[in-house]
């Protein structure tokens, strides 16, 4: 079932948690709401669930049905909480059965049906053997899977997960998120999960919604948001990035002593701009070309791991730059601290300072 959010606002006191948010989530997709803390991602999720009521105006549609005025218990959503929120006085079995047991007598399944449904859900999350355990006896990852089984028991139309892996340690987190992806591929329920971990969002989701200051900054597939960030915020938030103060004029960009082509600014009058380059999108050379390279000083190199990391300093203004090279290239270069080299951005993305314009990426 698709979810459409239209012009939703939410305020906590004087804090604008959601600022005119509109968002379309296609049916059957696994979507990540990604943003720093305070960006409004959890609030948006809770508004969709009906756990927070937004300001008047706007609408929330499930498929084509308006649900904004419906309370949480009429929306038929599955919600998984960051800290699991399992009923800790109930066994695992009773936790999963809860949503079925509280249904009104007319539609409540029989004891046998409830038992069968709970067993099959426990099988789905691979915890059949734990039916009689209490939540306290389970590990964090197990608890989260029980929380998921409990949410799925009522056959929700959409599944909402609030930082589902946030409270787990790194290894379990990676296992569990891959497991969630596989589970989603099996059951294909429209799912939205909140995360502040960009790696998690990029790895697991079909689509990433990047949020900041209560607004949606960009919506796109993981490739789109990583490779074609819509604005400086998304650039900063997704992965490491170097930024340069630049000047653009009529199709040329002047960056830290180098002159580079900038076709998207062709015919434009001179303007200040900011250039962004990812660390792996910079080539290091020994000889300066025809003014198309940025002179820099090698400060430190680190060859541990599959990629080598080099910290440099721009000669022009002393700003730090980070470059990531393949092992082979790193060994070939034999860089030494204190040596002067030249940097060639393979892919520089420029944003004019005036309106943070949404220019197309420049491939150099």
């Amino acid at each position, binding site marked *: 079932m698709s979810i459409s959010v239209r012009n939703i606002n939410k305020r906590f006191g004087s804090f604008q948690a959601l600022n005119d948010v509109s968002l379309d989530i296609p049916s059957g997709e696994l979507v990540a709401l990604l943003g720093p803390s305070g960006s409004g991602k959890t609030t948006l999720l809770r508004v969709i669930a009906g*756990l927070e009521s937004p300001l008047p105006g706007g609408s929330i549609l499930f498929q084509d049905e308006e649900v904004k005025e419906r309370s949480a218990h009429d929306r038929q959503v599955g919600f998984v909480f960051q800290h699991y929120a*399992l009923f800790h006085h109930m066994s695992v079995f009773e936790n999963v059965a809860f949503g079925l047991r509280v249904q009104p007598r007319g539609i409540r399944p029989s004891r046998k049906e409830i038992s069968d449904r709970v067993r099959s859900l426990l099988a789905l999350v691979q915890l059949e053997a734990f039916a009689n355990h209490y939540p306290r006896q389970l590990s964090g990852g197990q608890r989260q899977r029980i929380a998921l089984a409990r949410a799925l028991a009522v056959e929700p139309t959409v599944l909402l997960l609030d930082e589902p892996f946030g409270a787990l340690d790194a290894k379990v987190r990676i296992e569990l998120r891959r497991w969630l992806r596989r589970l989603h591929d099996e059951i294909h329920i429209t799912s939205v999960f909140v995360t502040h971990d960009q790696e998690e969002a990029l790895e697991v989701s079909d689509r990433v919604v990047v949020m900041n200051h209560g607004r949606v900054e960009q919506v796109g597939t993981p490739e789109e948001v990583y490779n074609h960030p819509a604005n400086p915020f998304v650039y900063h938030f997704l992965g490491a990035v170097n930024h340069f103060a630049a000047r653009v004029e009529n199709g040329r960009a002047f960056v830290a002593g180098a002159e580079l082509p900038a076709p998207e600014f062709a015919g434009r009058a001179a303007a200040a701009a900011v250039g962004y380059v990812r660390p792996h999108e910079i080539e290091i050379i020994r000889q300066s070309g025809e003014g198309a390279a940025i002179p820099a000083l090698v400060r430190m190199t680190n060859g541990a791991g599959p990629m080598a990391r080099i910290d440099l300093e721009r000669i022009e203004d002393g700003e730090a730059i980070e470059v990531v090279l393949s092992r082979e290239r790193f060994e070939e270069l034999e860089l030494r601290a204190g040596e002067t080299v030249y940097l060639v951005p393979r892919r520089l993305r420029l944003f004019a300072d005036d309106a943070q314009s949404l220019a197309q990426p420049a491939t150099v």
Partner: protein
Amino acid sequence: MNTTLNAPLDLTNDAPIATAATDPPAVRRLLIGLALGFLGIFIFLPLMVVLVEAFRGGVGLYLKSISTPDARAALRLTLITAAIAVPLNTIFGLAAAWSIGKFEFRGRSLLLSLIDLPFAISPVISGLIYVLMFGLQGWMGPWLRSHDLQVIFAVPGIVLATMFVTFPFVAREVIPLMEAQGTEEEEAARVLGASGWQIFWRVTMPNIRWALLYGVLLSNARAMGEFGAVSVVSGHIRGLTNTLPLHVEILYNEYNFAAAFGVASLLASLALVTLAAKTAVEWVSGRSHNRLH
């Protein structure tokens, strides 16, 4: 910088660090002895005195003193008062705790202070409040009299005063627990489709039941033993508006020591039953807690 780095680490000083658990045995025994001695002199001994004095005239006299019509009436009134005040306070206390512990609203801290009010003011004043409100010269006195209702110097006044004094116990026990538990489990129940009642009975209540029972027992102990507030509103009418504590006082003032101690022992045994129940609650809740671990 370098000097500190090069200085050898001083690992020779490995004398044990003194903690409460590693005090020398003599100190431990002394502390335990002091605590036990203090409890013995100030709590156990007086309780024994009550029992010894009660039976000084023999079992026959004891039974006679606690079975006089006035003593029986006092016992009955005490039990009736507790039977009305405690359930009502349980309901009100739960409602207050639920709203304070689970919701954010304007006036929340004011409500919290109001709940503490009965603890803060003297019981005599608590009684006086009702005299000033419902007494003949009070605000509602004329209206009550014209409708032939009596509150002060009657059972309703005693119940009201007792409720006022014992109100905080249930709420005070339950609020911290509800606040600590937060609202996530309730929210989870809500999105799973549970109604308000279902959430309360199936999720909230099981989480607070031991604290609630504990609060109820404390409230009950105080309801049966309250003297000050009840004394002001009761009017001390023998056989009618005397509760057990008031009856003890009357007997004592009449130099009827054997009877006074006899009734006092009855009151003390009610308290002991409550205490035993409380201990049982702690034991059972501790055990179920451990089982869950």
